[in-house]
């Protein structure tokens, strides 16, 4: 059976985990950390950096270091949230031909799903190194308020990274599942009566 990983694709950090004996286990990154900073950068030599390494150099390379990409996922350039986010990020945000908000890194524009895909690709690679076998399927969490466009953008990101996204789960749902809400039926009797 192929191995399925769960990914919390966060605004600041991301985490990957898998189920082992009915319990979720966090997959450490190649750097040996539980969290992977959701940061992507292109340095002066044109090399792409993802995660911890990208964050380490953020201050020296602000215009080519993309963070908080989640704020732009599946949003139009004229979205008021995009205007708000643009005022606090040091990198350039432009309108794509289809009206979506795209970000500039190095000498070209990237769609938010492309940037997210770079983070997912790193997570996928690290997971593959950890398991010693290919990982092709994943479940990804998104905020409950994400609309269809944002959910689809997240799915696209997975696809670009070479992951079949089996399901998009709402973050509050994921945390209740982690808490065991699905198993502790008796304790919830007050909830239904």
């Amino acid at each position, binding site marked *: 059976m192929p191995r399925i990983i769960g990914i919390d694709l966060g605004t600041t950090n991301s985490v990957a985990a898998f189920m082992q004996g009915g319990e979720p286990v966090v997959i*450490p990154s190649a*750097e*040996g950390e539980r969290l992977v900073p959701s940061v992507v950068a292109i*340095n*002066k030599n044109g090399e792409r*950096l993802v995660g*911890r*390494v*990208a*964050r*380490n*150099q*953020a*201050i*020296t390379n602000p215009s080519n270091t993309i963070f908080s990409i989640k704020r732009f996922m599946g949003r139009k350039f004229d979205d008021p949230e995009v205007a708000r986010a643009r005022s606090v990020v040091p990198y350039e945000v432009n309108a794509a031909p289809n009206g979506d908000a795209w970000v500039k890194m190095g000498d070209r524009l990237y769609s938010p799903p492309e940037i997210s895909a770079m983070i997912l690709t790193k997570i996928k690679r690290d997971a593959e190194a*950890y398991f*010693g076998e290919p990982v092709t399927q994943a479940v990804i969490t998104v905020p409950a308020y994400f609309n269809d466009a944002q959910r689809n953008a997240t799915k696209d990101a997975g696809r670009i990274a070479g992951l079949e996204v089996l399901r998009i789960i709402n973050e509050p749902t994921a945390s209740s599942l982690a808490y065991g809400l699905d198993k502790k039926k008796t304790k919830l009797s007050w909830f239904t009566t």
Partner: protein
Amino acid sequence: MANDNHKPSLSEDLSQSLSAQETSQPEEMPPVEAAEISATPEHPDVETLLKRLEEAEVKAAEHLDGWQRTQAEFINYRNRVQRDAEIQRATMKAEILQKILPILDDLDLAMHNMPADDPWASGIELIVRKFHSLLAAEGVTRIEAEGKPFDPNFHEAISHEPHDTVESGHVIEVVRNGYMIGERVLRPALVRVAQ
């Protein structure tokens, strides 16, 4: 079976067990000649026996295959468990060391401001040295950063500022030491980088 001179073959075994049956059965068995035996449920004909043999051989091959697979799986499992245990040991060690590092920072800072000619302070310095040599024995090394080109794999920039003497893209000052264990970064060095 180990006896080289006499290995009882299957047919011998069979005839022995048959003769054993004969003694226990009062009725005399008919002579074992295939042609003469008419097929009954107790004495199936050769064709049926051959078919049964074939089925048994297929089953045996299946079981052998299953057993070999299970054994291979077990070997893989054992290797994975061994590897997982090693990874877990390294991770636990790194996690504990990461928690200890801030104390080392404090001690190093205290040593920088050591009062001169104080035998008590000298004693503390010896203790700090002991601490350092323990970390070295565990394979912990300090990341060399001062004056080196900034490398985000080992350094974390906390400022990017113009500087008169330090070359652009090089480390001006290490604000907090970084450490490695083997090939792995325990904590990157916090550095100021020249613009």
